[in-house]
């Protein structure tokens, strides 16, 4: 019953729902999506009725708790506290990550200097640094934002770098033959060509950002969503706990789908529809 069990629960719930959203959601008709969600809810309901564990509520109990927590304001308040560092961290990590990744992909010295750092960061269990961040920056907004950035940045940098390095060579030659400048090369060829892999990195980065902020709140700064989960568990209010966890997963999923929508709308219009 350490705080670890709460995290484990979140992670194991996250994987099936993330599998559902990945890619296919956008192409399939809405009906299939609803069926898939309904099926998931039904399995949850049955598992809760058996029950799998005394600490595992049914789907309907969870939904009731969810509505109650919205009504009494505890969930919205928690989200205001959690979303601020999350959004700020994700935005900073996106711009810094895509920027640094692009520079490393374009210049050899940048590559040699910075890429090893991010490879190590990605390999390391970065979550272990979070208590360190708190030690230095306290338990406020800064620490939470940093936690988000630490988790999100490496994968964004590395994906961007990889995509930029593997840009279609023949398009670069074409750009040169029509006298495109270096700046035009980057903005009109390299970034659009790299955008699918960059966006794959952004999706992983955003998901990691969610992990970062919740971890920070569970481990160190008892505020926001993390605090709500801890608080609900301490009072054996499992329905409330699961409602909170499920809401994070739902929000994370919606964010990732929105990101995919932006990618296709703005950067790769040829992938629309077909």
């Amino acid at each position: 019953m350490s705080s670890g069990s709460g995290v484990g629960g979140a992670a194991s719930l996250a994987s099936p729902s993330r599998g559902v959203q990945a890619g296919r959601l956008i192409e399939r008709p809405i009906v299939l999506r609803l069926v898939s969600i309904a099926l998931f809810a039904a399995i949850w309901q049955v598992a809760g009725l058996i029950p799998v564990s005394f600490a595992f509520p049914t789907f309907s109990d969870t939904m009731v708790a969810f509505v109650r927590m919205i009504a009494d304001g505890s969930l919205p308040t928690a989200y205001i506290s959690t979303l601020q560092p999350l959004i700020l961290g994700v935005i900073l990590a996106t711009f810094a990550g895509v920027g640094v990744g692009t520079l490393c992909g374009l210049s050899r010295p940048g590559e040699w200097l910075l890429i090893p750092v991010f490879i190590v960061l990605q390999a390391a269990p970065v979550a272990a640094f979070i208590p360190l961040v708190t030690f230095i920056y306290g338990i406020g907004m800064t620490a939470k934002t940093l936690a988000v950035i630490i988790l999100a940045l490496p994968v964004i940098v590395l994906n961007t770098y990889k995509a930029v390095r593997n840009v279609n060579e023949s398009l670069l030659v074409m750009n040169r033959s029509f006298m495109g400048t270096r700046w035009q090369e980057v903005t009109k060829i390299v970034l659009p060509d790299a955008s699918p892999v960059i966006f794959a990195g952004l999706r992983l980065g955003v998901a990691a950002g969610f992990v970062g902020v919740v971890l920070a709140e569970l481990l160190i700064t008892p505020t926001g969503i993390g605090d709500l989960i801890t608080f609900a568990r301490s009072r054996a209010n499992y329905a409330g706990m699961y409602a909170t966890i499920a809401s994070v997963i739902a929000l994370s999923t919606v964010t990732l789908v929105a990101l995919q929508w932006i990618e296709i709308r703005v950067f790769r219009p040829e992938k629309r529809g077909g």
Partner: protein
Amino acid sequence: MHAAIVRNDAVPTNVVSDAIVEVRGISKTYSGVEALRDVDLDFPRGKLTSLLGPSGCGKTTLLKIIAGLIGADRGTVAVNGKKVSAPGPERAFVFQDFALLPWATVLRNVAFGLELRGTAKEEREAIARRYVVDVGLAGFEDKYPHELSGGMRQRVGLARALCVDADVLLLDEPFSAVDEQNRRKFQEDLIRLRTNQNKTFIFVTHSIEEAVYISDRIVLLSPRPGRVSRIIEPEIDRSGDPDRIHRDKHYLDTVQEIWQGLKQYVE
């Protein structure tokens, strides 16, 4: 037999009087591989010249040096009398692998050369629309490259090169990734385009038939290191029915003659 092919009994030479592109003493060695050795060659204005030769003889290398995409170790290239060492507005390249932006529509791809030059959107799209029609792609303006066949994609590449209004068009095996039927149709269209565009074409090809069918002038290169081995000017009347040309005696004789010349290299 030779005299029948070359007008006025004159053997065509490397140097011509009204040359738009002048290649002088070009040599190129890639890390130990000597691709071109001391190539002197003129390309007459307003004509279609083909570079023909065995695989690996340096055709692409020569074309890219003329385009300014790679540098030569020695020698110079002059276009309109001015020495060039980088891409310029008077030359446009058509790529073997099309090099189209997959995320851009046909219209944007065709206008891309102008987009890079900073031409206003409305103006460049108006110009691009004209060339889209010229190359036979009317109605496909808003399609993406992956929705087109290989032949259509290369038409986009050709329209993009025409759009920037260069004097010289450089085409590197533009039909090699296009199926046979489309290739024939495309060759006919190229002959037609050439008569009303008044541009100079420099065309790399593997195919003797293709070279004889479309060229005013054929430059045969020797195997590596590439040098000019012979120049042939097929005198073929292309005004009539395209199918008639393929049965024309001149045409068949010239193909045969070139094949005799090249055969030694393959054996």
